[in-house]
C-alpha cells in the first residue's frame, strides 16, 4: 500500500475523559485492502481511537483524512456516509426482529407499493449470510440465536453497508473455531475487494493469521507497529505490558493463615444455558485467610461466572465438584445464604447490579445489614447512621451528607459504598468482580489499600480483574482461567504480566519458557 493514498490517516489524535488521557498523539493509518490489527490492554485506548474514527466520539484533538481529504464527523451517520462501519463488541441488534429485518433495519427494501419487500430482503439477507459463510434462516428472530451467530449477523450487516472501512472490535469473542475460520475467509475476500479493516483482538494466533500490520497502544499512546507474522507472541506481549509495575500497589505480605475456601473441580451444567456464558467446567483453587487471590482470563473465560457460582446466583442446573468453606462443604443457594456464611460479593457493574442510584448513601450502605440495627424489625436510626458513618470514614468516602443520592458520587466513591455495604456484613471471604473498573486512580489506590488492610485482618479475597498490573500488584497469587477451567496458577512474586497474558491467551510455549506453569 502506498503511504500517500492511505484510505484512512489519523494524525496526532488525542482525547481526554476527565482526568484520564485516553489517547495521546496517536497516529494511525489504514490502507485499502489492508487488515490492520490494533492491540493493547484494556484501557489502552483502542476503543476510544476507533470510536473517534466511527464518529461516536466527536470532540478530540488531531485530524482525520479519508483518501487524502480532511474530514470532520459530527456523529456516526457522517462516518457511515464516508463508508466507515463499526462492528461493536456489544451487539446492537433488536432481539425480537428477524435476521433479515435486523440487517436492513432503517433501510428496508420496498416494493412498488412502498410496502416492505420481505421476499427480497430475505433473499438478499440469505445471500449476504452465505457470503459470510453462515447457514442461517434469515427469518429467524435474532433473540433465538447464539451469541456467536448474532456476531456473524452483525458482520453480515456491516458488509451489507458496502463499507470501505470496517472496524471489528473483538469479532471472534463468541465464535467457534470453524466460525472463526469462515470469518477469516470473508475477511480475505473483503481485503481483495479493497476494503480496509481494523481488527481489534486479544488473540495472538488470530492476528498472526489474518493481519498485515499490527499497532500496539499502551496508556493511550502508540508504542509499537510491526508485521505480526514476524514477531513472536512474547515480543508482542512485552510491547503491550512493558511498563514498570506501578508503585501504587500495596505489596502484600505473604503471612497468610489457614485455608478458607477450597474449590475442587467445580463444574456447572445450567439447565437453560444462556448464550455467552462460560460456566465453570472444572475449576479448582484455594484461598487462604489473609490471602488475595486473583482471577485472570480473557473476556468469556468464566471469571464472573465462577464468582456467581460461589455466591449462589449462577443459573440452576446440576453441578459437580465441591466448594468447601473452612473445611465444611457448602452449596451456595443465594446471596442471603452466602452472606450468612460470611461470603460477600461486589458485582461487576455497580450501576446495574450494585446500587439504587436514586436512593441515599445511607440506604445503600446499610441494605445488607439493616436488620441488625434494631429489634423486632424496627430500625434504630442512630445505630444505622453510626454504622454508615463508621464505614464512610474507614473507606475515606468523599460525600456531602448521608442523605445525598448515591448517584451523585463519583464512580470510585460509589464503589466504596458497595464495599462498605459488604464489610458491614462482616464477611470472611470477599468475592470481587472488576472492583476498580471505571474508578479513578486515586480511588483505585484507596481500594487497593483497603484490600491490603482487609487481608491483614485475615479476610480472604478472590479478585477477578482484566487489568494485569492490578492482578500482579495486588494479589499474592493469580489463577488463570480459560474456557471455564483453571489453566495456570502463579505466585505474583515471581511472575509478570506477560506470563498471565500468555496463559490466558493459551500460548503454551511462552509460559513454559517463562517457567510459570505449575
Amino acid at each position, binding site marked *: 500500500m502506498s503511504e500517500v493514498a492511505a484510505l484512512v490517516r489519523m494524525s496526532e489524535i488525542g482525547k481526554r475523559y476527565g482526568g484520564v488521557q485516553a489517547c495521546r498523539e496517536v497516529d494511525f493509518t489504514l490502507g485499502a485492502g489492508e487488515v490492520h490489527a490494533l492491540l493493547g490492554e484494556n484501557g489502552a485506548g483502542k476503543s476510544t481511537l476507533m470510536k473517534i474514527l466511527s464518529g461516536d466520539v466527536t470532540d478530540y484533538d488531531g485530524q482525520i483524512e479519508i483518501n487524502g481529504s480532511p474530514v470532520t464527523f459530527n456523529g456516526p451517520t457522517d462516518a457511515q456516509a464516508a463508508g466507515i462501519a463499526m462492528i461493536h463488541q456489544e451487539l446492537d441488534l433488536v432481539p425480537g426482529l428477524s435476521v433479515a429485518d435486523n440487517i436492513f433495519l432503517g433501510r428496508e427494501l420496498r416494493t412498488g407499493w412502498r410496502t416492505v419487500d420481505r421476499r427480497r430482503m430475505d433473499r438478499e439477507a440469505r445471500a449476504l449470510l452465505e457470503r459470510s459463510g453462515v447457514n442461517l434462516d434469515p427469518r429467524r428472530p435474532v433473540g433465538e440465536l447464539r451469541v456467536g451467530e448474532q456476531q456473524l449477523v452483525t458482520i453480515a450487516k456491516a458488509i451489507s453497508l458496502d463499507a470501505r472501512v470496517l472496524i471489528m472490535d473483538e469479532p471472534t469473542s463468541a465464535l467457534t473455531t470453524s466460525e472463526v475460520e469462515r470469518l477469516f475467509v470473508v475477511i480475505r475476500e473483503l481485503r481483495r475487494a479493497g476494503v480496509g479493516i481494523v481488527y481489534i483482538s486479544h488473540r495472538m494466533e488470530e492476528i498472526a493469521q489474518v493481519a498485515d500490520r499490527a499497532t500496539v497502544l499502551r496508556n493511550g499512546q502508540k508504542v509499537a507497529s510491526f508485521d505480526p507474522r514476524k514477531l513472536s507472541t512474547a515480543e508482542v506481549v512485552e510491547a503491550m505490558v512493558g511498563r514498570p509495575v506501578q508503585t501504587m500497589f500495596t505489596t502484600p505480605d505473604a503471612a497468610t493463615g489457614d485455608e478458607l475456601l477450597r474449590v475442587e473441580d467445580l463444574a456447572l451444567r445450567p439447565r437453560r444455558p444462556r448464550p455467552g456464558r462460560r460456566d465453570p467446567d472444572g475449576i479448582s483453587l484455594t484461598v487462604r485467610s489473609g490471602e488475595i487471590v486473583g482471577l485472570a482470563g480473557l473476556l468469556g473465560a468464566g471469571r464472573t461466572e465462577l464468582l456467581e457460582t460461589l*455466591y449462589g446466583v449462577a443459573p440452576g442446573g446440576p453441578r459437580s465438584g465441591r466448594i468447601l468453606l473452612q473445611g465444611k462443604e457448602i452449596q451456595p443457594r443465594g446471596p442471603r445464604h452466602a*452472606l450468612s456464611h460470611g461470603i460477600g460479593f461486589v458485582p461487576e457493574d455497580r450501576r446495574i447490579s*450494585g446500587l439504587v442510584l436514586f436512593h441515599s448513601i445511607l440506604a445503600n450502605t446499610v441494605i445488607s445489614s439493616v436488620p441488625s440495627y434494631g429489634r423486632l424489625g*424496627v430500625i434504630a436510626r442512630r445505630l444505622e447512621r453510626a454504622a454508615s458513618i463508621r464505614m464512610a470514614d474507614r473507606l475515606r468516602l468523599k460525600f456531602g451528607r448521608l442523605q445525598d*443520592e448515591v448517584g451523585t458520587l463519583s464512580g470510585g466513591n460509589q464503589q466504596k459504598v458497595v464495599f462498605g455495604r459488604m464489610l458491614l456484613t462482616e464477611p470472611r471471604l470477599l468475592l470481587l468482580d472488576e472492583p476498580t473498573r471505571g474508578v479513578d486512580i486515586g480511588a483505585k489506590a484507596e481500594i487497593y489499600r483497603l484490600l491490603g488492610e482487609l487481608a491483614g485482618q485475615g479476610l480472604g479475597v478472590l479478585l477477578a480483574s482484566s487489568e494485569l498490573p492490578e492482578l500482579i500488584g495486588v494479589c499474592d497469587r493469580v489463577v488463570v482461567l480459560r474456557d471455564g477451567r483453571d489453566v495456570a496458577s502463579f505466585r505474583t512474586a515471581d511472575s509478570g504480566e506477560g506470563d498471565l497474558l500468555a496463559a490466558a491467551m493459551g500460548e503454551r510455549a511462552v509460559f513454559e519458557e517463562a517457567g510459570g506453569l505449575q
Partner: protein
Amino acid sequence: MTDVQDKAATAPTTPTEKSGGVVATLFRFQSVFGLLAVFVAAIIFSPRRDGEILFLSADNLANVVRAVSEIGIIAVGMTFVILIGGIDLSVGAMLGLAAVGSAVLMVESDWGLIPSILVVLLIGLFFGALQGMATAMIGIQSFIVTLAGLQIARGLARIWSDGQGVAIAYGDGPNEAPDSFALLGERTFGGLVPIPVLIFAVVAIAAVIFLRVSAFSRHLYALGGNEKAARLSGVPVIRVKIAVFAICGLLAALAGIVHAVQLNQGSPNDGIGYELDAIAAVVIGGTSLAGGRGSVAGTVAGALLLGVLNNILALNNIDSNIQLLIKGLVIVAAAALQRLRPAS
C-alpha cells in the same frame, strides 16, 4: 437538572443549593400543594346558601372524607405494591368479594361479628399472598397475575352471592347481622368523624410509621429501586414481594368490609374500577410507577385531592361525564409534574 445535583453534592452550603432545596421541597410535597390548591379552588367555587360556604360545612367535609375512605384504604395498599415496581389490579374485585363475604357470613351464615371480619380479612391476606407468590416465584408480571386475580375474585364473589346483592339487616334474630357491625358506619367524636374515615386514618398513619421505622421498608424500597442490586445485597426478594401483595389484599378486604357497612349490603359487582382510582391516587401522590420512590403521605393527599375534586364538581352540578374529563386531566398534570422533578 444535573447542575443542581452536582452543586448540591459538591458544595452543600452554597445559596444555589438552598434554592434548589426549595424547588426540591415543592416537588416533594407536590401532592400536598396540589391538595391545597384544589381545596382553595373548592372554597372559591363553592355554592353558597345564606352566605355560608357549602363546601366548608361540617357535613360536607365529613362526606368528602367518607367518600374517600374506601379508595384511600385501598390506595395505601396499592402504594406498597407500586413502591416495589408492581401493580395490583385485583383490589376492586377483592373489595367486592370482601363485601359479599361480610354480608353472607353475618347474615346468611349467622357468624358473629369478629369471626366474620377475621375470615374476610384472612381471605384478602391469603389471596394477596397467592398473587405475590405467582409473581415472585414463577416470575409472571404482577400486571398479568392481578388481572387474572381480578377475574377470579370477581367470579368468587358472584358464586358466593349467587350473583345477587346480599342485603344486611340488623338485629339479634337469625339472618340478621349484629348491631355492632352497623356501628362501624356511624360517626364518632361527637358525631363529627365517620368511623370509616377513622379506619382510613389509622391505616394511613400505621403505614406511614411502618415505612419510616421498619427494617422491612428498607428492603421494600431497595427492591423497588433496583431489584437486581437488592437481591445481590441479600434482600429476601421473594418474601418481600409476597408480604407486599398480602398487605395490599388485606387492605382491599378491609375496604370491602367498610363498603358493606356503608351500603348495608354486599354486592358482587361493587368496587368495579376502584383499582384505577386507587392507582390514580398513588400517582397523584408522587409515587413512581417504576418503583423505589414515593410515600403513603403523598397517596393520602392524592386520594383527598380526588375526593375534594369530585365533591366540588358535584356541588356545582357539573355533568358527571365532564367530571371524568377533569379527573383525567388532573392525573395527567400530576404525572407531568413528576417528569419535571429535579432529582433525576
